[in-house]
Every structure is written in C-alpha cells, then in structure tokens.
C-alpha cells in the first residue's frame, strides 16, 4: 500500500478509536436511556468513519459507499425502534433511569 494512504489510515484509525472509547464510556457509565442511545450512535459513527477510511485507502470507495448506505438505513431503523422502546419504558416507569428496568417482571 502507498505510504501516504497508510499514513492517512493510521491517523484516522487513532481518532476513530478515541471516538469509539467516548461512545463506549457513555454507554457504560450513564444511567439515562436516551444517553445510552447517544452512546450507541457514537459507536456507529466510529464504525461508519472506519469503513469510509478503509475503503478509501484500499481503493474500494464505491463498495464502501454501498455498505455505508446500508449501515445508515439500519442505524435509522434501530434508533427509531429504540426511541419507541425508551418511550414505552418511560410511560411504564415514569423515569428514564436504566436501573428501574431491574424491577420488570419476567
């Protein structure tokens, strides 16, 4: 692989790892369900950016774009369903605290 492309790949990868850590930390630490969704979004954004960079440096930009479009569609569907689940939980518990989910029966 070309040295310039390799350098681009490394630089982007480092920032992507940091973005991934930020999202993962948010999911681990927070108790608010909407914040969990935000953390999940950050994780998906890190994956999207990694796909873009990997496809760019390997010369497969067109294939990468097709994959990213699929990923974005799945992301939207997932967030819409998650928002519905979070609202249902809120109406049931009157709280967005994830710890309240332990009180569910079943």
């Amino acid at each position: 692989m070309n040295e310039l492309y390799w350098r681009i790949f490394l630089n982007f990868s480092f920032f992507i790892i940091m973005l991934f850590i930020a999202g993962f930390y948010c999911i681990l630490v927070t108790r608010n369900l909407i914040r969990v969704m935000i953390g999940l979004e950050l994780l998906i954004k890190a994956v999207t950016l990694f796909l873009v960079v990997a496809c760019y440096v390997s010369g497969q930009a067109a294939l990468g774009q097709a994959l990213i479009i699929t990923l974005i569609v799945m992301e939207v569907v997932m967030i819409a369903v998650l928002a519905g689940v979070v609202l249902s939980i809120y109406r049931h518990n009157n709280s967005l605290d994830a710890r309240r989910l332990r009180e569910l029966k079943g």
Partner: protein
Amino acid sequence: MTINLMLLTAMIIAALWTVMGRSLLKASIGLALTSAIITILMFRLDSPLAAVFELSVCTGLITAVFVSTISLTKPLTFPEIKKLSKDRNKRFRYLPMIIILVGMALAYINLKMDFSAVREALPEGAHETDVRNVLWNTRQLDIFGQIIMILTGTFGVIILFKGTRKR
C-alpha cells in the same frame, strides 16, 4: 492532511461535549455536530453519496428523533438536576483523561512501531468506481435487506406506539 487532522480533533471535541454535557438537548445537538464533521470527512475521502446520506439522515432525521423523544419525556426539577449533575461529574470526570492517555499511547505506537510489513501485505486498490454499479449489481441483496429492515422498523414502531396508546 492538516485539514483532516483539524476536522478529526473537532470531531473528538464535539463527541466529548455530547457525552459530558448536562443537557440532553445539547447532547443531541452535539451528536448532530459530530455527524456534520464526519460528513465533511466523507466528502474529503471520496464518498460523496454516503456523505449526503449521513448529512440528511444522521444529522437531520436522527437528531429530530432524539429531540422528539426528549420532548415527550418530562424535564427534571431543579433539585433533581443539581443532585444528578454532581453524580454525573463524578462518573464522567475520567473520560477526558482516558481519551488523552489513549491518544498519547496511540501516538507513541505510531512513532515507535514499524508497520511496514503490514503495509506491504495490504493490496493496492483500483476497483469499481461507480457506486450505482456496486449497489445494483454487486450488492443487490443489500437492497432487499434494507427494505426488510425498514419494514421491520415501521412494524416495530407501530406495535410500540399502539401498545402505549391502549395502556
């Protein structure tokens, strides 16, 4: 490359603001900002179609979903906010330190380690350049997958909201 590094740094700052901010509304705006910066990076990395999708869907639609979800929930009272923010600060204070430490470790790895063997093993790229050909010819099944996902999502949202209305 300098512009890319500046954009990447801005992206990390926006992500940190999103994660560490107190207000949920500001967090969703921070997420949209992160998404917008990623869009610019996508344009710079020869992925204009994906960038347009990211801008319209992730920056626009998902932010709208977040804002409407936040608006449908009850805002906290002032004593609750005060109590929670103290607790939040305690839990989130390690994140910037972790990010800085990981950044330093990665920079050290980048400077000290020799990746030339890995670099040589990776193939040179010169492939299909038209995204329409890839989407409609090579990855046809993805389209069906996307349709199924959208229908599943629609069905899921209908079921969820129907259930809450009955209750």
